[in-house]
C-alpha cells in the first residue's frame, strides 16, 4: 500500500490522523485547534468538489495548458540581467559565500 492511500475508505471523510499525515507531507506543524478546524473544513470543501464525479467526461483528455503554445525554447546562451549572486541572495536568512546555508539535515 502506498504511503498515503485511503482507497479503503469513503473519499473526503478526513479524520484527525488524515489531517496530521497531510500536514506532515506539506511540512506544516499544526496546532490541535487547527487540526480540528481543518478536518471539518476540508471535509466540507472536498464534499463540494465531489460534484465533479457526476460530470460525464467520456472521450475527453485532461487540459494541461490553454493557449496552444508548444515547445517554447530559446537559444542556450548566457544572458546578463545585471544582477550579481550577492544581489539575489540579499534577503536570504543565512548565507555563506555565494550559497544558502541551512541547518543540519540529520539529528
Amino acid at each position, binding site marked *: 500500500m502506498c504511503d498515503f492511500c485511503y482507497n479503503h475508505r469513503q473519499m473526503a471523510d478526513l479524520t484527525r490522523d488524515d489531517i496530521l499525515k*497531510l500536514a506532515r507531507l*506539506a511540512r*506544516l506543524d499544526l496546532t490541535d485547534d487547527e487540526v480540528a478546524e481543518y478536518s471539518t473544513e476540508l471535509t466540507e470543501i472536498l464534499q*463540494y468538489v465531489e460534484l465533479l464525479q457526476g460530470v460525464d467526461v467520456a472521450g475527453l483528455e485532461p*487540459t494541461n*495548458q490553454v493557449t496552444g503554445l508548444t515547445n517554447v525554447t530559446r537559444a542556450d546562451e548566457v544572458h546578463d540581467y545585471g544582477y550579481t549572486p550577492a544581489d539575489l541572495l540579499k534577503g536570504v*536568512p543565512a548565507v555563506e559565500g555565494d550559497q544558502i546555508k541551512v541547518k543540519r539535515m540529520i539529528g
Partner: protein
Amino acid sequence: MAGWLPIAEIAAGVRAGELKAADLVERALAVIEAKAEYNAIIATTADRARERAAAVDAGDNQGRLAGVPFIAKDNFLVFGADTTAASNILRGFDAPYQSTAIEKLEAEGAICVAKANLDAFAHGSSTENSDFGTTFNPVDKTRVPGGSSGGSAAAVMLELAPFALGTDTGGSIRLPASYCGAVGLKPTYGLVSRSGVVAMGSSLDCIGPLTKTVADAALVLDVMAGRDDLDSTTIEKDSYVDLGIAPKAKIGVIKEYMGEGLQPAVRTQIEAAIERLKAAGHEIVEVSLPSLPAALAVYYILCPAEVSSNLSRYDGQRYAHTYKDAKNLDESYMKSRSTGFGKEAKRRIMIGTYVLSSGYYDAYYKKAQTVRTKIINEFAAAFEGIDFLIGPTAPGTAFKIGENVADPLQMYLVDILTVAANLAGVPSISVPAGLADGLPIGLQIMAPQRADRALLEIAKQTEGLLA
C-alpha cells in the same frame, strides 16, 4: 480634490511640460495619507517615486505614461518597498529584481508610488485575509472591497492614483472591481508576463489593470502586454489603443449566470444593462454553457494543487522569515512554514496536497483537468456563433466585513461567476453597471482568447451606455 485626468492626458501634459511628475507623485502621496483609514495600502515607495519623478521631469522616460503615478498590488516585485504578498512569511522581503510588468511601465515613464493590500498570497475574495489588516470598501466602510485585489480596487476608487495593478487567478481583479465600482480587466492568459509576480495558480494567474475607465485600462494593458523571455507562457500582443467604435455584435447572455442565487437588485441592473446593449443595435441571444456550474469545483481542485506546489518555496531558507531555533533542517521547514503562513494559505496547501496525493490524483486532479477541457470546449462552441458572452461579475454586492470569514466554502462561492474565464484562458472585463441596493456592481463581458482588443472596444461602448 478633483479626480485624476485620463492617463493619456496626464502623460501628454508631462511630456509637454505642463504637468510635473514631481507634483503628480506628491499629490498621490498626499491622497494616500489622507485616505489611510481605508487601509488600501501596505507601504509607499515614496523615496524611489520622488527620485523617479525628478528623473522624468529632467527628461528621462518621456513615454506614453510619463509621470503617471500608479499602485501595484503587493504581490508584484517592486523596488523601493518590501514585497510581502500580505503574508508574514514574506515580511521584510526586499525584492532583488522587478516584475517585467513594472519594468515595462517604468520604461514608459509610469511611477509606482505604493503597494496595495490583498488577501495574503492572493488567496481570498474579500481582502480580510491579509496579515496587514482588512481593506474597507470605499463606498461603505462596513463592507469588504472584494478580493483578492481589494487594495488595488479601493485605491483607484479613492483616487490614490490613476491606476492600480492586480492579479486575477479566479476573479481577483474583476470581483473587487465589481464591489468597488472600478473597471477591472483580466486579459487572455499569457498576454502579460508573470515574471516577478508571486505565483499562486500558474495555469490560471493573469495580470491586469484596475482603472476608472476602459480607455485607461486599455492603455495600461498595451504597455504591459507581449512576449517575455522570462515567462515562457507569454503570447504576442495586439494593439489595445486607439480603440474603434464597437461593430454591431452578437452577444450571448449566459443562462447559467442568470439563474437562482442572484441578488434580485443585481439581476435588475444586469437586465437593464442588457437592454441598453440591445437598444444600441447589438443582437442579444441566450446561450447555455451547461458545465459552468462545475467550474468552481474544478477551480477549487486545480488552484490549491498549484498553490501547494508554488508555496513550497517558502521553506524558511530562501526568503526573509525563518524559525531561528530549529535544531535541524526538517524542523526549520516545519516551524518556519507554520509560523509564517496564515490560515487560508495553510488550508489551500492542505487541500492541494490531498488532491495531488497518490490514490487521489486521478479522482480529483485529473478529473478536474478533464472537466476543464469540457468547459473550454463549451466556450469554443459558444464563440463559434457569437462574439461576446455577458453576465454579472458576481452574484451579489459587497458583503459585510466578517460575514463569510468563518465559512471558507461560502467565501469561495462568491467567485462562482468569474473562475470559468480563468479555466478557459479567455479575456474578461468587469465594467461598472451602476448600483444595486446602493452598492456598485459590475457587468462581466468575456471574449474569445486573443480578442482582447474587441473586448475593450465593446467594453468602452458599454461603459458609455451605462454611465
